[in-house]
């Protein structure tokens, strides 16, 4: 268990809702949910969620900390924003799900080998490195994220798609050699570093 997770359990012993309000992006909205279930019924991958958003909101209020934070559920969000535009109370549900996912990641509670959690982290690392996404490197790191054997298998399965993209000029092997990047990479990295420092300071001070 991570140190941060232990510290948070100590700090918010009696109220998971307070913990979410203080630490999860847009978490202060959770208590506004009136349990109508429109979000759950509107979710395109709803049938794959262990706990659909409506249930997650009630579980947060019921203090089911482990069940929520180590759940696979919020990683099923495709960011389609159906729930946001339909919620009769105007909760930013998509953002709350993203916030819960990010918080679970900070605490080290994401289920092992959760594919979207892994892919999303790969994408973030990829884009921060050069300031722009390198699609070829991201694609390959995705195929190989569960080891070499599986990577070769996935690559073979994706071969025809890759060839189609290559033939139409929508994929370039040149991307392996450096690839696209922002010109002021040092300024970009300095700004991102400062943003992370400020984010860390704010989290340490207020919870978020």
């Amino acid at each position, binding site marked *: 268990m991570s140190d941060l997770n232990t510290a948070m359990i100590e700090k918010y012993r009696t109220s998971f809702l307070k913990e979410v309000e203080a630490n999860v992006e847009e978490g202060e909205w959770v208590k506004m949910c009136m349990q109508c279930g429109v979000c759950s019924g509107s979710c395109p991958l709803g049938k794959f969620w262990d706990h659909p958003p409506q249930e997650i909101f009630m579980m947060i209020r019921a203090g089911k900390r482990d069940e929520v934070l180590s759940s696979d559920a919020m990683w099923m969000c*495709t960011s389609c924003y*159906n729930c946001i535009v339909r919620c009769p109370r105007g909760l930013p549900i998509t953002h709350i799900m993203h916030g819960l996912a*990010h918080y679970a990641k900070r605490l080290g509670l994401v289920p092992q080998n959760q594919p979207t959690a892994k892919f999303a982290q790969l*994408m*973030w690392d990829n884009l921060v490195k050069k300031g722009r996404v390198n699609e070829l490197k991201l694609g390959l790191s995705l195929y190989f994220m569960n080891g070499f054997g599986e990577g070769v298998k996935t690559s073979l399965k994706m071969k025809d798609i890759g060839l189609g993209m290559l033939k139409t*000029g929508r994929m*370039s092997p040149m991307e392996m050699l450096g690839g696209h990047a922002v010109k002021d990479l040092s300024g970009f990295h300095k700004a991102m570093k400062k943003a992370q420092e400020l984010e860390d300071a704010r989290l340490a001070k207020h919870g978020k």
Partner: protein
Amino acid sequence: MAKREYSFYPGCSSQKGASSSNYLVSVQTMCEELDIQLNDIPDWNCCSASVGYAGGGELPRLVLSGRNIALSEQHNPGQEIVATCAACWLSTREAKERFEHDQGLLAEANQALAEAGLKLRNETPIKHMAEVLVEDIGYDAIKAKVKRPLEGIRIAGYVGCQTNRPFGIAGESFENPVYLDKLVDTLGADSIPTYEKKVQCCGGALAFSEPAKSQEMIKGIIEAAYDHGADMIVTPCPVCQMNVEVYQDQINATYGTKFKIPVVYYSTLMAVAFGRSAKDAALNGQVIPAKKLEEIAAK
């Protein structure tokens, strides 16, 4: 028509050799014909799209878009920012609104951006290219440019998610937007206003991490288009375009279907209808060739 200028945010997938480089080519052609001048935001960076939240916390994520807006305000002052990618548009506009609602966040973003010598005023409107077409140019002006009407082509307008929600195009409904259908009609093709899957999710980034779940949804999007007798699907979103086009063989292998339907951008249709060549319309960027458009472009 007077020339219109915008500060342009092309986005990662539009770059040379990237997955929607064909989108950029057809957009450039479309804009030439409509007297729209796109001034790139110099040195723009990635917006972190829809799955940036896992690795990036709130401020680092928002600073990405903050940097783009700041660069635009510095180099293309007074020009509205226009994005062609749904995720770029959504992230940038969302960042702008979060900064508006939380001055503390804006101050922190400026502290971070100062490290790169930038200042974010956060006063620039953020538009999607579809808004430029519908609101700034208008259907009549578009119709006036049509040299080769796309007669006899039946096109399912697939709007998808992020061009439509949470912001959408002013005056359009989230459940049944009609601007893409109107655009199809304006170009002389036949729209399918009752296409049920026009705002169905394709899986977005989860097409990579959860392929089976996403392809089940993509199957529905394509099936409904065939049910309506569509010759092709048109979309405003690079992720929708790629997801719906390139996995058709895998879907056929899984479900025993025989899908082979071209998926194009609105800008592809416009470039062809405006009388430009197949190359200018980037028809060579179709993994599934849009033969009916090739025939018209060759006339």
